[in-house]
């Protein structure tokens, strides 16, 4: 029998709120975190809006001393604050730096999509080009190495199990959770912090702007720019932030008497192989459906038990295809489709952080019994219109919300799907 894995702590730094209760309230109210970004306008970006956590410099200064702050670029900063929040939310104390004990039973998987690009662009490239390598100092590698986030979190919390950083584009955050669950199920760890983060930087977003896949048509109306499932969806809105879930083996939780938010019933990752319509940038629909079905099978439930879907749904041409894939994979047509919403309608697409932030959104909806609104889709895409009844435009109270599916689909034709169930003792 599989070891059961539950969520006992969460932390989130999102464009529309830092902290669980603030974020939950923002979700419930449909509060957008999308704003005009003057730097993008100054740099002649087509897209001049984005979702960036507000007031983060003040937030991180409350958490970390001067010495640590020097090593925290935005990507690692978002991850560090969210990880500490998840850790303390689960009832653990942040150890003192002088405390030499290591928690060998807990590890961390902390992903990002593009990572320390701001440090590379603003420090490494100019200083190298000016011949000033010797004056870069000691803090570059730890901020640009792909494992910079997991390494920092492990040091903050003295974690001694597996510490690694994954990367699978927009699927990264979900994948971290799925990998962490697998490790706990295998009996190789008791607890894992799993999540993702992504910095806020024009250098991260530039490539997407050049591809014209981010929204260029709503620069004068930032809060309307992220339009998943809309007929006038015009590309995704770039976002930034970080989130972590503390995943824990059920027996361990019971022995320490900790609160449980939800159980991770199952998960699945795969790749469409860039075939059957899949490419480096587009999903193979067969891969998507296999991933969803795989997660449902791993969860050991019937597709009919799914009450709501938190989609990938970024506001591109792929949204109608995604909804069709869900319908086919679950064998549920418009007449009995689950609720479906897009957290990205409020926060944009936070890339490597997206899955993690949106998993937190899922668990908060389970905790509080509601389905959050999906903004800016009053004009549904015609192919999605048959599902209109199941797309909330304002928060829907759902005290019976029990099972929610969360998916992410990323560049590279990679897919991830998770099934969460509300914890009912």
């Amino acid at each position: 029998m599989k070891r059961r894995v539950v969520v006992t702590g969460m932390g989130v730094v999102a464009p529309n709120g830092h902290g669980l209760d603030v974020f939950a309230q923002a979700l419930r109210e449909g509060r957008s975190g999308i704003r005009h970004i003057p730097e993008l306008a100054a740099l002649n970006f087509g897209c001049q809006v984005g979702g960036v956590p507000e007031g983060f410099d003040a937030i991180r200064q409350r958490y970390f001393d001067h010495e640590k702050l020097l090593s925290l670029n935005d990507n690692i900063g978002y991850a560090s604050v969210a990880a500490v929040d998840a850790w303390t939310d689960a009832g653990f104390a942040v150890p003192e730096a002088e405390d030499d004990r290591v928690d060998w039973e807990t590890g961390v998987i902390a992903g990002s999509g593009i990572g320390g690009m701001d440090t590379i662009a603003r420090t490494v490239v100019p200083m190298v080009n000016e011949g000033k390598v010797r004056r870069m100092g000691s803090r570059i590698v730890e901020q640009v190495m792909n494992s910079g986030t997991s390494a920092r979190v492990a040091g903050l919390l003295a974690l001694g199990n597996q510490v690694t950083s994954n990367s699978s584009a927009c699927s990264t955050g979900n994948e971290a959770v799925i990998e962490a669950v697998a490790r706990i199920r295998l009996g190789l760890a008791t607890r894992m912090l799993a999540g993702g983060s992504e910095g806020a930087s024009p250098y991260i977003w530039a490539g997407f702007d050049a591809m014209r896949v981010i929204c260029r048509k709503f620069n004068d109306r930032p809060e309307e720019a992220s339009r998943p499932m809309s007929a006038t969806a015009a590309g995704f809105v770039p976002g930034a932030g970080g989130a972590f879930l503390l995943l824990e083996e059920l027996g361990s939780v019971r022995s320490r008497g900790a609160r449980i938010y939800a159980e991770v019933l199952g998960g699945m990752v795969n790749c469409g192989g860039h075939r059957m319509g899949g490419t480096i940038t587009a999903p193979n629909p067969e891969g998507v459906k296999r991933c969803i079905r795989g997660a449902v099978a791993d969860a050991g439930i019937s597709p009919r038990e799914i009450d709501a879907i938190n989609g990938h749904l970024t506001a591109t041409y792929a949204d109608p295809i995604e909804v069709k894939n869900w319908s086919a994979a679950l064998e549920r047509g418009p007449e009995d489709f689950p609720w479906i919403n897009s957290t990205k309608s409020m926060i944009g697409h936070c890339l490597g952080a997206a899955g993690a932030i949106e998993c937190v959104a899922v668990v908060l909806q389970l905790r509080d019994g509601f389905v959050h609104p999906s903004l800016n889709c009053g004009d549904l895409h015609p192919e999605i219109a048959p599902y209109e009844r199941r797309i909330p435009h304002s928060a829907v109270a759902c005290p019976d919300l029990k099972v929610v599916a969360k998916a992410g689909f990323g560049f590279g034709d990679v897919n991830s799907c998770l099934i969460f169930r509300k914890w009912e003792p």
Partner: protein
Amino acid sequence: MSEEQITKKIIDILRGYVKDSALLEKATPKTHILKDLRVNSARLVDIIIKCEDVFGTMIDDDEADRIATIGDAVLLIQQKAA
């Protein structure tokens, strides 16, 4: 600049790199920067850069390698100024 002034400036520089600033309260010329102040060894390069900026000098790798204690740093700065 007097030896006392140089020492004070070096202690101010070190303040940004010690986890426990109380350790600097009883610092002497013999205080070892890594062993006594428990500064992360990777940060020595940052301390050297800061010294270069504060004292308006260049410290090459061989000179930097000679710094183990606060007194070593003070002596080097005095020699550079002479």
